[in-house]
């Protein structure tokens, strides 16, 4: 039994280390070659479940603890965004494995987040980065894609009832589409059910106020912070 606990602790510590290294699978090299060829976060998460380690322990002591270290390294400029994204992708892949287990145990995720680049705009780098990082932060992310018609966004909110909606636009010619989405949500009496966050090169805090969005996020990290603040306010 003692051995089992030790093995469990070892595997959780290894998951954490692999998150810090940004190693999703065995094939990934990581930040250095110290773990090269060893199992990555995906393989280790599967092994942990096979050993009956609880998903909550995997998430809190392995995945989240690892991401916390990554965040600290990013804020001290030791890590760059590609490092952060690699770690978030690894955590996101682990969450995909854990999702059915969490659902069967009735464990709630942090929240559902739908994201879309508005109608007329096909730019998606920022949107994709936000999606990866939020998934890595433990949110259930629904990526609706680019050039998404207002009706499709409203339809999704109506059907899936996500707590959060992220809208992205790069162009000054397409940013008005964000206001149209918010207006349509109001018309469909859905506005109060969803917090709308906007971002992208063309928009600003001022614009967010103008169109009655709930928050403007300058980057993905601010999006995580804003969501945490909403969660705290909810509690």
């Amino acid at each position, binding site marked *: 039994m003692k051995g089992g606990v030790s093995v469990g602790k070892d595997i959780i510590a290894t998951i954490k280390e692999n998150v810090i290294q940004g190693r999703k699978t065995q094939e990934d090299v990581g*930040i250095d070659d110290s773990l090269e060829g060893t199992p990555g976060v995906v393989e280790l998460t599967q092994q942990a479940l096979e050993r009956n380690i609880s998903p909550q322990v995997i998430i809190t002591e392995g995945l989240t603890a690892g991401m916390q270290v990554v965040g600290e390294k990013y804020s001290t400029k030791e890590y*760059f965004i*590609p490092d952060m994204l*690699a770690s978030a992708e690894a955590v996101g892949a682990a969450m995909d494995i854990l999702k059915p287990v969490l659902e069967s145990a009735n464990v709630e995720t942090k929240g559902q987040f739908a994201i879309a680049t508005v109608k007329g705009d096909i730019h*998606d780098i920022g949107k*994709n*980065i936000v999606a990866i990082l939020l998934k890595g932060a433990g949110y259930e992310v629904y990526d609706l894609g680019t050039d998404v018609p207002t009706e499709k966004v409203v339809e999704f909110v109506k059907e899936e009832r996500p707590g959060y909606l992220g809208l992205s636009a790069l162009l000054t010619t397409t940013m008005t589409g964000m206001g149209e989405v918010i207006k349509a949500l109001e018309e469909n009496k859905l506005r109060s059910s969803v917090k709308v966050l906007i971002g992208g090169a063309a928009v600003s805090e001022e614009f967010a106020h103008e169109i009655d969005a709930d928050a403007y996020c300058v980057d993905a990290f601010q999006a995580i912070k804003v969501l945490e603040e909403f969660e705290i306010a909810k509690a």
Partner: protein
Amino acid sequence: MPRKGILVHRPYERLTREQVELIHRASMQILTDPGLISFNREAVDILHSHGAAVESIAGDRQSWQVKIPEQLVLKALDTAPKTVKLGARNPDNALIMHGDEPRVYFITGSETNIWLDVDFPTYVNKADPTREIKVPEFKPRRGTVDDLCQSAHVCEHLEMVDGYIRTVNIQDRDITEDNKDINKFFASLNNNTKHFMSGLTSLKQLNKVVRMAELVAGGKKALEDNPIISFITCLVKSPLQFVDDTTATFIEVCRRGLPVAVSSSPQAGTTAPIKEAGIMAQINAEVLAGITLGQMVKPGTPVLYGSVPVRARMDTLGDSYGSVETSQYNIDCVQMARFYRLPNYSTSGVCDSKIPGQQSSIERLFSDIVVAMSGPQFLHCAFGLLDCNSVFCLLQAVLDDAHFKMIEFFLRQPRIDQPELEAMLKQIREVVATPQKLYIGHIRPLLRSGEISGIYPFEGSGEADDVFELAYERMKELLARPVEYINRKTTARIFEEIPGILPRLNIYERGS
């Protein structure tokens, strides 16, 4: 292993081969008609004994007309070494210069009279006293030997500085013409382990300076093998005149076989024609005349083809180092030196601006990039210099180091080959097949390998322009780093054998 500098892939050339040859032919003609005027008797005797035509010029000052035939120049070009080694206290800092290779080493200098201090006083917004900003304030003063020590110290730690030319003229009360050279050499050598080049204030100091270098290098033979010092002499004053004292110094340096840069600095518009063809024909003739004299004194003397051409400012007729033409002339000189297969001593980065700022950055970066692209070998690139080489600011030197880091990266050879392209095609196909279609995952293996250029190191947070403050912090950090001083035993011998070095420069005696 010596320093590598940067080997410039496909160097930038302004002149065609035909234009280079035309300049060469014109210079050969200049050397016989009108020839040069020499104010130095010994140079006249040496040139005459080797076949140059000389004729006394009537006047108050003794001078001679010297006509140097082409065959004497060609013979000198034959004996002048095509590879020159500039040694260093730390042998890993040695520079090997091949005349036919477009490589670039970044070197400090020249000597300035003014040292620019920087301070950051706080200013308060009158309308809103809660708002404060720090604004850099620059205060000029006369340079001292302590300043020279600081400059050598910081340049030791600046990554992109390959060699050191003293940056500040020492003007302390206890510095005289009789002890200036030994003090500037000692202060520089003691605080910097890279190659040291300097001019001489007094020929009488030459033997003392060479003896100092022998003691530091480990003996006479050791200095020959590892010439830790070299000299720069402007023996030719434009247009076409051998100056008495600097020519005398040049002859003596050549006799000792130490490396020497034969430099000429004509000013287009005043001491040389304003047109490119004219200044190029003249400066080339002036440098070749110096090289020819040096090889007559001692065949095989290592020489650098030194070029500091500049255009005149039209408003003051002073030097305009920031002018675009100045860079053009320098690149032309690089090509002329390579035509003769001699290492070039070229110039860039000198600016007209009086203080660090936008003008200074634009002027110096423009010439630093274009002249470096020509692959001049020894690029005397004015680290920290302002106001047409009359002011030195350590903060600017720190800023320059970051510029040269960018230039170094820019000059790297492109890696475009079949294996690389195959790897890229594989990557493109893989990423295009993913839902997010982002290549970010492929950045990571390169992030810490040095294959991706870094962000500007003095970038402020948000919209704040903190460049000067951040560079100042970096400067202080470099000054706090230790320096590899000359060891105690050698220092004691230097002070014993070479009287006149200021006691405060002996770090073992002052206990710091």
